[in-house]
């Protein structure tokens, strides 16, 4: 009974487990038989969708497990409204996109002459992406969130660079990884800032305890930066159009349900923190408005299908950010609803673009048109999706704009006007896309598209229409998500009203303005192109390129300086170590930390021996001939053995004498192996710029002195481990404590040491035998 209830309490883990298992399952199936990867992957996506829906239907729930409790990190996942919305999107759209890919990918690979086996990699990373998104949606702990966040970045890197022979694809993938990866670190810093102040990483706990102030503003800005970069908002937007180098299903997924959606998901997750600071909400407002306008204007100028859609995505997520920035219950629930309706429509449009490029081999609007007769079903299905994006009545999109207008009206007239203008721009570029593809003069003839490239679009288009007629289920999901963000119920009642309420008037205004923009294209086309060119010349992408270039040059320089020769390689390790030690010494308080220690009466022989060691060591620095050098060195070593004897360490003395004898013989032997002439030449080497070397060794010596003096000055502990060792030695059947330590207490150390000696003997034997084992 208890086992059963324990299993039930872990039930919310089910969607995450299925989603995370999908990638390895598809990879495994793909290695067994390349053909199997697609069906297995698609089936797992469907399973994950069902698992999420089932768990959500049963009421969601939270699983809270200790992860690293001493650091305040917990493995907390919850299937609340927000998580359910994004997890359903990720798995549901994932299923459709994978079904589409099962036909698209073989065509794509075939065109590029690549083996079918490479498909497994595609499904593996797509499903990893899906698993990461489900995890990200459900994570409640900021560090856990960060882990899944970076997992999506890794998956997107491999997917964008799927055509890895193409340098452009690789550069785009790197750009996406850098822009979202570097800003991800900001998320981590923000999370740790909050942890340092409030002692918890759990978002619900933080929502209860944060107070407006500098900490919240800074941490909120850092987290918002990460979210905005992921959602490709201005000024981080430039990576998204470049990421179109990916295969089309990847773009569709990236834009509608993964990666880009992850950014606004994070905003929704941390919205309870952000809403406490009006400044943060204002930042979101400004960024959202900028992204809406920049994305829409550039979408009106692009000729390549996927580029147009990419800029439209920037603009559409700008709305979501704008809605969060508006705040209030309409903001939170409206943003969630907006994400759903945009995901359905945008995914369908991307899949349409991919299907058309497969059919015609063209990817530019200027070379396409009049495809209705050839592809009637695709035209209708994507028409429904486009209508949804443009927010026409009888589609789910109509309600997204209704909510947007209501939220904007709450804030005031200016925002209402701006949102009408934004909606009009959306209508204009959506018309440009769909009208450009399907209307106009076109060749006749039956299309030859496989069904799998059409029916996912039809399903999505159907959903867009269905949402326009029966909005209830979508609204419920968005309400639940809004409640999770807002912290209170957010009733939204999307419905058609046949009266002159403001939102209806604004919608009509947007339609009229949209038609006017489409009709007046010659008037503004030049201006839009100028904006686009200005962005290319002075946009943030320039900054990115400059930064990457500078980093490359710095890395080349450091690399060259480091690997020049043996000394520079050693210096590359020792110099940073020295700097660290120096910094350590500088920040350590010095008053009273250094002691000279007292000299007892019996210590004079010891002092004398130390002086001899020092003099011998100094002598080695100006001895020229190698034999003398070896003898002086062994002299220093033997006197050092004497020092150990004075310190009451007979074993060390004996071993030191042995080792010194051995080393002396080794040095003399080496001098014998190498002809006298070489040694003699070597001894006469021009000693170069010795003053520099003297300076550096004096500096090193000073460091050593500071470290040794400060370490030795530390007062002895009261109860030393030495007494313990001396007491325990008889129990180890030894009288000599040192041998008891070596052979018993720390026997593993000795074992390691013996291994080193054995390896060295092997190495020396091999080296002397010209690289072969004797």
């Amino acid at each position: 009974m208890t086992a059963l209830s324990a299993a039930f309490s872990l039930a919310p883990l089910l969607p995450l487990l299925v989603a995370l298992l999908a990638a390895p399952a598809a990879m495994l199936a793909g290695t067994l038989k390349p053909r199997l990867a697609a069906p297995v992957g698609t089936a797992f996506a469907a399973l994950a969708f069902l698992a999420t829906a089932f768990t959500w239907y049963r009421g969601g729930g939270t699983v809270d497990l200790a992860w690293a409790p001493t650091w305040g990190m917990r493995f907390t996942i919850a299937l609340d409204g927000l998580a359910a919305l994004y997890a359903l999107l990720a798995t549901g759209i994932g299923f459709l996109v994978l079904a589409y890919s099962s036909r698209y990918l073989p065509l794509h690979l075939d065109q590029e002459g690549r083996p079918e086996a490479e498909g497994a990699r595609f499904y593996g990373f797509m499903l990893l992406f899906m698993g990461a998104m489900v995890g990200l949606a459900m994570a409640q702990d900021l560090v856990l969130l960060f882990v899944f966040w970076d997992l999506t970045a890794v998956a997107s890197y491999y997917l964008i660079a799927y055509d890895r022979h193409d340098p452009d694809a690789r550069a785009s993938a790197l750009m996406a990884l850098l822009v979202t990866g570097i800003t991800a670190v900001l998320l981590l810093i923000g999370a740790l800032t909050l942890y340092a102040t409030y002692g918890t990483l759990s978002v619900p706990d933080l929502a209860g305890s944060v107070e407006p102030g500098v900490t919240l503003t800074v941490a909120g800005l850092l987290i918002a930066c990460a979210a905005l970069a992921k959602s490709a908002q201005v000024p981080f937007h430039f990576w998204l159009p470049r990421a179109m180098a990916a295969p089309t299903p990847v773009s569709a997924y990236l834009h509608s349900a993964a990666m880009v959606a992850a950014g606004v998901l994070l905003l929704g997750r941390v919205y309870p923190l952000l809403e406490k600071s009006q400044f943060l909400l204002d930042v979101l407002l400004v960024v959202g408005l900028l992204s809406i306008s920049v994305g829409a204007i550039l979408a009106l100028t692009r000729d390549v299908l996927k580029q147009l859609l990419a800029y439209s995505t920037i603009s559409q997520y700008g709305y979501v950010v704008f809605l969060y920035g508006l705040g209030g219950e309409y903001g939170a629930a409206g943003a969630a609803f907006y994400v759903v309706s945009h995901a359905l429509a945008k995914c369908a449009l991307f899949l349409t673009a991919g299907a058309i490029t497969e059919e015609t081999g063209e990817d530019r609007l200027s070379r396409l048109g009049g495809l209705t007769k050839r592809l009637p079903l695709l035209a209708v299905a994507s028409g429904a999706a486009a209508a949804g994006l443009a927010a026409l009545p009888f589609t789910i999109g109509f309600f997204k704009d209704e909510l947007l207008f209501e939220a904007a009206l709450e804030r005031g007239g200016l925002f209402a006007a701006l949102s009408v203008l934004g909606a009009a721009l959306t209508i204009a570029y959506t018309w440009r896309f769909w009208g450009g593809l399907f209307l106009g003069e076109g060749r006749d003839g039956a299309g030859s598209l496989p069904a799998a490239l059409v029916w996912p679009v039809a399903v999505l288009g159907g959903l867009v229409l269905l949402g326009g007629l029966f909005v209830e289920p979508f609204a419920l999901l968005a309400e639940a998500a809004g409640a999770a963000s807002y912290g209170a119920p957010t009733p939204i009642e999307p419905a058609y009203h046949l009266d002159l309420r403001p939102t209806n008037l604004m919608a009509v205004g947007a339609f009229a303005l949209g038609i006017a923009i489409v009709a007046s294209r010659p008037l503004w086309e030049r201006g839009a192109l100028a904006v686009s060119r200005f962005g290319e010349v002075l946009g943030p992408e320039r900054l990115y390129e400059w930064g990457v270039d500078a980093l490359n040059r710095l890395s080349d320089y450091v690399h060259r300086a480091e690997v020049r020769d043996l000394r520079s390689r050693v210096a590359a390790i020792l110099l940073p170590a020295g700097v660290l030690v120096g910094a350590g010494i500088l920040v350590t308080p010095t008053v009273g930390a250094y002691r000279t220690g007292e000299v007892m009466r019996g210590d004079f022989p010891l002092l004398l021996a130390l002086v001899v060691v020092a003099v011998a060591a100094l002598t080695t620095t100006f001895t020229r001939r190698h034999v003398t050098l070896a003898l002086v060195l062994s002299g220093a070593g033997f006197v050092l053995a004497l020092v150990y004897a004075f310190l009451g360490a007979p074993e060390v003395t004996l071993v030191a004498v042995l080792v010194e004898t051995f080393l002396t013989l080794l040095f003399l032997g080496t001098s014998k192996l190498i002809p006298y002439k070489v040694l003699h030449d070597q001894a006469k080497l021009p000693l170069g710029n010795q003053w520099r070397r003297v300076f550096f060794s004096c500096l090193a010596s000073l460091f050593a002195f500071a470290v040794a003096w400060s370490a030795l000055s530390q007062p002895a502990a009261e109860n030393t481990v030495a007494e313990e060792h001396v007491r325990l030695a008889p129990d180890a059947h030894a009288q000599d404590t040192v041998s008891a330590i070596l052979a018993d207490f720390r026997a593993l150390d000795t074992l390691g040491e013996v291994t080193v000696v054995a390896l060295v003997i092997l190495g020396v034997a091999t080296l002397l035998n010209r690289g072969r084992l004797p």
Partner: protein
Amino acid sequence: MILAFSLAVAVVFGSGVFLVIQRDLLRVVVGIVLISNSASLFIVAAGLTRGAVPIVPLPGGDGASASDPLVQAMALTALIITSSVTALLLSLIYRLYVSHDTMDIEDISVAELREAEALERKNRPEIEENPEKGPAAEELEERSR
């Protein structure tokens, strides 16, 4: 005594560093041995107690203070590792001498760079203008004169 030990450690270490940054590889090895010696001295000097040899029975009875046996055990380990590493380094130098006919770091660097450039040329046949030596090797040779 603390100051005396620290000074001795510093002088031996500094002399070792001076030798390690020489061009002659045998001197480099001598420098490494000196640095290891200074480390051993430091370890032994860091013993928390000084007194009788830590062999039971202690001359002064049970309560008498003995030298810290732990640092002695560590120093023993350090000494053995030093001697092994030195043996390995000396055989490496011998190998280098056999293959390059020199024990001068600069000569060996030049040879290494030339080899790297030869490899590069083999991989990219288009850079064939200067088959004898590349710009990097030339620069290094210039510097070593």
